[in-house]
């Protein structure tokens, strides 16, 4: 799957905004983001801490907790609106249609239940299978994610697995009811560098084999470049640039994306120091007017300080920056 396919999108997010009701009034953490995801596609979401990427993922799974709430926009999944579904209907979607993988495999599993119990419970929640059939399916999945001797290890507890093995179990758990979308929130951040590539490969292979699309949330541009088909770059709760990953990596448009790319170390480059983007992302309580990036932007001009840029199309993708003109997408 490359770029955007012309078929109807699996997931369609339109103008999604998430705000937190605080004592000092609402704080908008995600501000009008829009993107589509085709079936089987891998979309990377990259940005600094607090850019709103994890929140977006949480909102799609319907697990946003008070005081956070969706205050504008809509999320459609397989054509159906899911942002306003009743809790019980949303629960049935989770796991069955939309799976999730979290950052830390060491804390994602219940320490008091064997991995088999957790798998079987998940399978039987969503599929009408007998205990034996669910167990066979669980063993099959453990084998698929590369756990050696799955029929023996199924009865072991999470603490008997290493970190990398546990993340494999987590992937099996997320995929065991065949969801068509998996939201992977920093799935390799807590792992050893040597294990990261293995887990990413596994995630990619499993999702391809089971026909699941992936939203890969990470702050690691290298992970995105290796894994994703498209990438959405987030800054201060907005998508500043979205497009096919090779285009965005090779020829970024938005000054923020350019800055990001220059800050990645490259083998063979002789630069003594990495370039960095001066300053830090603004806090939600003190967002600048206009484009949130303008105080750090080397190319900022008057319009940037007064009006928020809207996304305009650029080859294959879109960018929200006053430097680029066009019909809003």
């Amino acid at each position, binding site marked *: 799957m490359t770029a955007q396919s012309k078929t109807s999108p699996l997931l369609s997010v339109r103008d999604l905004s998430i705000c937190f009701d605080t004592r000092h009034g609402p704080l908008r953490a995600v501000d009008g983001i829009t993107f589509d995801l085709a079936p089987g596609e891998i979309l990377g979401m990259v940005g600094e801490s607090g850019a709103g990427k994890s929140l977006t993922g949480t909102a799609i*799974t319907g*697990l946003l907790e008070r005081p956070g709430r969706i205050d504008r926009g809509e999320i459609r999944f397989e054509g159906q609106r899911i942002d306003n579904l009743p809790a019980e209907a949303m*629960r*049935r*979607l*989770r*796991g*069955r249609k939309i*799976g*999730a993988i*979290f950052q*830390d495999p060491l*804390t*994602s*599993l*219940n*320490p*008091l*239940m*064997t991995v088999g119990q*957790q798998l079987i*419970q*998940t399978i039987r*929640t*969503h599929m009408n299978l007998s205990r034996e059939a669910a167990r066979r399916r669980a063993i099959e999945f453990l084998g698929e994610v590369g756990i050696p001797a799955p029929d023996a290890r199924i009865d072991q*507890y999470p*603490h*008997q697995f290493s970190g990398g093995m546990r993340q494999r179990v*987590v992937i099996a*758990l*997320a995929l065991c*009811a065949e969801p068509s979308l998996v939201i992977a929130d920093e799935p390799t951040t807590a792992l050893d560098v040597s294990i990261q590539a293995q887990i990413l490969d596994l995630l990619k292979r499993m999702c391809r084999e089971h026909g699941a699309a992936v939203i890969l949330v990470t702050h690691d541009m290298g992970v995105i470049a290796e894994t994703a088909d498209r990438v959405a770059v987030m800054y201060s709760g907005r998508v500043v640039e979205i497009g096919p990953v090779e285009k965005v990596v090779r020829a970024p448009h938005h000054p923020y994306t350019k800055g990001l790319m220059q800050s990645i170390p490259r083998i063979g480059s002789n630069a003594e120091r990495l370039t960095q983007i001066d300053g830090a992302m603004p806090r939600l309580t003190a967002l600048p007017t206009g484009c949130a990036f303008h105080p750090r932007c080397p190319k900022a001009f008057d319009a940037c300080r007064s009006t928020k840029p809207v996304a305009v199309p650029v080859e294959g993708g879109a960018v929200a920056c006053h430097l680029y003109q066009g019909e809003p997408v």
Partner: protein
Amino acid sequence: MVAFVIRRLLQSVLVMLAVALIAFTMFRFIGDPVNSMLPENATAEDRQTLRENLGLDQPVTVQFTRFVSGVAKGEFGISYRNKRPVAEMIAERLPATLELVLAAAVFALLLGVPIGIYTALHPKGVLSNILNIGSLIGISVPTFVTGILLILIFSVWLNWLPSFGRGETVQIGWWSTGFLTVSGLKSLILPAIMLGLFQVTLIMRLVRAEMMEVLRSDFVRFAKARGLTNRAVNFGHALGNTLMPVITIVGLQLGSMIAFAIITETVFQWPGMGLLFIQAVSFADIPVMSAYLVLVALVFVAINMIVDLLYFAIDPRLSVRA
């Protein structure tokens, strides 16, 4: 695990020896028992004979060894006041106290755990707030006040329940139980509530705090993200993980409930060990007091041991390591 049990047993023996030493020294502070046991006009030979008969001419270490070996066999000597073996008196009183504590503990758990779970699952609910405030009252009012209030309301005003004693009891071997008669059960209600009320609030607050903590943990979020039912998430995944600290505290509280039963037993004239102890104190009946001390320590040590073993039953991570 066997190594753990053995290590734990050895520790327990050390603790019990220390307690026995304290119980033993109590005798030495009260003066020479020979003086109180013989008439004023006894001769020096009489004194010497009695001293030798009692073994008081032996070195302290020998006396302590004999005391410990006696205690180990359940011999605590003769009560100064009743002139009866202390072990016998305690055996008479023990069932009353244990039944009271058991009833109070069951009452506390049956009320405290569900309320704790409810308030954790609905932290902002009106009922939760009422229960939380109620628990503050429960935790701050002294138990004898609640006991006296209970007597005033249910015994004096409403005349539903007896205000003192154990009611009729049935003997099963040496054990006398109040569980099998109507009057026994009726007599049990008020003291059990008085003794258990503080524990209800404690258990409720503990379960609430632990459960809220666990509900925020990653594996609960991941369980929710897999679409498991609320029931499976809350009771299958969250509750089990809140139980460890709850078991620890309930275990320790069981010990202190036996110790604090003294107050309840005094208010309700409950014929248990606590009442026996209070009477012993007012008569300086040292054998009874030291026996009570040793026994309460033994209960604490035993409960702690059981709690540690329960961890193994609940948490698979422990059984593998040991």
